[in-house]
């Protein structure tokens, strides 16, 4: 059976897995943004926290994904559901680029702009939300783009612990030595990664050139 025929005959299954895959990635990314951006802001406010926070995020990054899934498996609440565990692991991976780019974006705000904001009588909160964060959005988006592409790739490995997603095809294909099956996981995952890169990149580009 040709690859094309294989995709055609399994299209429902492939679409279903892609949706599962995307769901894992989207939830993890939202969590990583919700945690990473405040942590990044915290680092810019309390510079002594830079080492511990960026350090721990970097360490999480260096753990091989398969090992990280394995480490988390025995934990009580986490290990109970495979998708829950996969989301936590993916969030950990996505954190570093998001924290780092939040910090870089805020630190790149021109001192004269921040000083003008302070001199106009803006509170620290107003400076953060109306000046620093909006101005660092392009840099932050670049971090989100990198994190999204990574997590889309790493999420295929989540199938090893039964979290579903496109990795299912790849692991099954490896076990059955079936290239069509492997590609049924690998190609959609690659397409998702490229699409995420392009779409987020487009937003980034627009923001950079809007001013």
């Amino acid at each position, binding site marked *: 059976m040709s690859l094309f025929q294989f995709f055609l005959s399994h299209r429902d299954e492939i679409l279903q897995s892609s949706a599962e895959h995307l769901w894992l990635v989207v939830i993890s990314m939202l969590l990583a943004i919700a945690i990473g951006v405040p942590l990044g802001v915290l680092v810019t406010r309390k510079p002594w926290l830079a080492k511990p926070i960026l350090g721990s995020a970097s360490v999480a990054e260096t753990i091989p994904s398969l090992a990280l899934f394995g480490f988390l498996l025995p934990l009580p609440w986490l290990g109970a559901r495979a998708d829950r565990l996969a989301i936590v692991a993916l969030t950990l991976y996505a954190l570093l680029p998001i924290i780092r780019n939040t910090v870089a974006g805020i630190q790149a705000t021109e001192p004269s702009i921040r000083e003008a904001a302070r001199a106009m009588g803006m509170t620290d909160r107003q400076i953060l939300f109306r000046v620093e964060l909006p*101005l660092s959005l392009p840099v932050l988006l670049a971090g989100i783009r990198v994190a999204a592409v990574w997590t889309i790739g790493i999420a295929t490995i989540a199938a090893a612990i039964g979290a579903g997603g496109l990795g299912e095809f790849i692991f099954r294909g490896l076990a059955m030595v079936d290239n069509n099956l492997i590609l049924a996981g690998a190609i959609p995952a690659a397409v998702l990664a490229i699409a995420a890169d392009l779409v987020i990149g487009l937003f980034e580009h627009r923001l950079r050139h809007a001013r």
Partner: protein
Amino acid sequence: MNPQSTVDNAIEFRHAEFRLLGHGAILKNLSLHIRRGETLVLLGRSGSGKTTALKLINRLLEPSAGEIRVEGCSTLEWDPIRLRRRIGYVIQDAGLFPHFTVRRNVALVPNLEAWTEDRVKSRVEELLRMVGLDPGQFARRYPHELSGGQRQRVGVARALAADPPILLMDEPFGALDPLTRAEMQEEFLALQGRIEKTVVFVTHDVREALILGTRIALLEAGELVGIYAPQDFLGAREPIAAAYVAVFRADIVSLSSRNRGAS
């Protein structure tokens, strides 16, 4: 102390000092009264402490010793946010927000003060006209779509937006080409004649100080050398003031002799 002096002085420096760890004293024992409605020029070279003195007024910096009183209250007694919203601030590269249109930049403080939309709108238009920019043409533009002089005009409009009684200007025209700078100085004089703010103006340019200042306070290495009326400054005997005047005169003399040689 005489209560009258509190009323007449918009700003008072009382033995104000500012030290920075590792840099020593940047400003030493500065005592200075700035009268309501005057334009006081702080003249000095870079590192003389003039910008530091300016930033002590709106509490971007806090004095290491002594105090600065604004409208009779020490800056440390003021809520810094309230204080700053009563003091306009214009800096060299304007410091406009690049992601705000001209309209939003000018409307910044009125919006922070939660003015009604109509009031903000008419105020922005009034201010843009006042600084010589047509609102219809400029209100929707972003700072990067403006020339340096136009940006600086917007900076002045933004500083005046909530009608603050005090205006601080830190070399506002320093980055402009000579023609635009002269134009802006003229317009500033005309504007100041109408709005009568208390202005503290920092510059290193003697010519600018002489044109714009009601009085000139000369700073050198963190210390106040003296305070002069512009006409007295040209005849000042104090060596540092005399040195400024000498350079200023030398420029004019060498220029006129060159012109004579050419003709």
